[in-house]
């Protein structure tokens, strides 16, 4: 139980990067980008095939980021220059990428068994610090009988995801970032302030898919394989993370929204892991669970708000009637 939760948190943080990418298109640019299902695998595939061919894991991950960026830019180009509807350009890119990914990987699955990965490279350094026994000691104090074999992934990923979060926060406050947000908010307005909205959309969707590909590259190295099917339904997971995160942690400022999205990704993983341990649920039910989660995250805040409003109104009415009684 503890171990599977730990695994959920590990992968949840990695998926958090993908969720940030989805946040960038879905919320900031107001561009429902379905490229994600393809570019996630592109990232995983490029990283895996590079590593298998002897490229260092860090360079392999960089290559994955570039590949994702290019894929996103093409979606952006289709939409802006080709004037193809946003949803459709994403779908077209997604199916095109399925074939491209197969070409990149040369086979449907690339195994990283016994290969070097970023996490394995960090392992010796981490062991030297000796924090594993410290954290495991704490867990054992609380009565855990089986402990995680290493904490390096969790810690490394927290650092990476926070760096990306702060970079995103900063970027969205720069002059270019402001123009990007305005492109999602009011295109006509920002065009009248001399911003090239086409280029902003292309770059924005590019950056988003670069994040998604990075997430894919890390997931492949974490799980030890890349599979051409691994991206199916990724956009829904990304959206679920954004929606759950915003519902739980709010979205008042960009800094809050970005951390909420990452939190949403982790919580999504935890809920799915817990749900799969329920006896009558099977692995195949995962998509249904996802759908129900997203529906709850979308509907529950509205119901709660309506309740709150109703209570407020009832209280006001009660106050008014007591005032009238007192007066008479």
């Amino acid at each position, binding site marked *: 139980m503890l171990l599977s939760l730990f695994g959920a948190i590990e992968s949840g943080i990695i998926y958090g990067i993908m969720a940030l990418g989805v946040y960038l298109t879905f919320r900031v640019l107001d561009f429902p980008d379905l490229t994600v299902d393809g570019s996630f695998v592109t990232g995983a595939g490029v990283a895996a095939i590079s590593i298998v061919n002897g490229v260092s894991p860090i360079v392999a991950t960089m290559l994955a980021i570039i590949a994702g960026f290019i894929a996103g830019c093409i979606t952006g180009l289709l939409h802006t220059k080709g004037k193809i509807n946003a949803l459709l350009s994403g779908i077209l890119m997604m199916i095109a990428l399925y074939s491209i990914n197969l070409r990149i990987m040369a086979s449907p699955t690339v195994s990283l068994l016994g290969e070097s990965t970023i996490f394995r490279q960090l392992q010796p350094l981490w062991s030297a610090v000796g924090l594993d026994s410290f954290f495991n000691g704490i867990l054992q104090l609380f009565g855990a009988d089986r402990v995680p074999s290493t904490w390096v992934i969790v810690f490394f990923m927290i650092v990476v995801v926070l760096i990306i979060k702060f970079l995103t926060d900063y970027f969205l*406050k720069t002059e*270019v970032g402001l*123009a990007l*947000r305005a492109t999602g908010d009011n295109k006509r307005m920002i065009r009248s302030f001399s911003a090239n909205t086409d280029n902003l959309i292309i770059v924005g969707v590019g950056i988003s898919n670069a994040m998604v590909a990075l997430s894919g590259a890390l997931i492949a190295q974490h799980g030890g394989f890349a599979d051409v099917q691994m991206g199916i339904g990724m956009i829904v997971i990304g959206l679920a993370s954004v929606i759950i995160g915003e519902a739980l942690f709010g979205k008042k400022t960009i800094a809050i929204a970005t951390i909420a999205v990452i939190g949403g990704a982790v919580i999504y993983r935890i809920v799915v892991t817990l749900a799969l341990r329920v006896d009558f649920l099977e692995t195949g039910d995962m998509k249904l669970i996802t759908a129900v989660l997203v529906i709850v995250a979308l509907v529950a805040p509205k119901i709660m708000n309506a309740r709150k409003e109703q209570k407020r109104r009832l209280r006001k009415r009660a106050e008014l009637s007591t005032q009238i009684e007192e007066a008479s």
Partner: protein
Amino acid sequence: MLNLSNISITFNEGTPDEKKALQRINLELKQGEFVTVIGSNGAGKSTLMNVISGNLAPDVGDVSIANNKVTFLPEYKRSTMIGRVFQDPMAGTAPSMTIEENLAMAYSRNKKRKLKLGVSKKRKEYFREYLTTLNLGLEDRLNAKVGLLSGGERQALSLLMATFTEPNILLLDEHTAALDPSRAELITKITQDVVQKFGLTTLMVTHNMQQALDLGNRLIMMDKGQIILDINGDKKQQLTIEDLLQEFKRIRGEQFESDRAVLG
């Protein structure tokens, strides 16, 4: 400053819906001239604005700004030289962004946008000072989302954003039409102040004849895609609504009755 020569534009050419939106329009605006444009719906006022802003390309004819031909320059490039306020108070600002962020975007209009903070401390002070001139208390709400402002406040902010980089040309597209009378008056006053302060070359479309007479130093009347009346200087100062209606009747006698309701 602004020169339109021989501009024609036809929509849906060769179909039953064909509409000659602009017909051989020639118009020259001198530096600092403030022109009000009146005319009934469909007269071509909005098309004229869109041709100047770069939203529409004319079929024939040329647009030049400050002696540069800009006929085929896309809107986003041309807008370094043109400030524009739309009729819809929602159109000129980004609602989910804060007042200071909106101002920062307007501030970068004629500069290349870079990867440095849009709202720096120094700029914040500048924005605050600048907003004070509106007397709406917006300077204390720099971090408020623009979507929370009222229509009048948003339109005042739009006007400020459109003008504070001192564009070569200011286009006002019925920018007071969606406001209540007192707010419209306020925006009109701010318009007057800001145009005077920077000596902006301005083109203002309005449906309010009194406003067209009160503001600016030149008045043009459009009908069926043509400029049918062009009055400036002292002659404009003495003009009354009755004069305008008489003039309109003289030039376009046959359909005067149907237009009276629209213009009056």
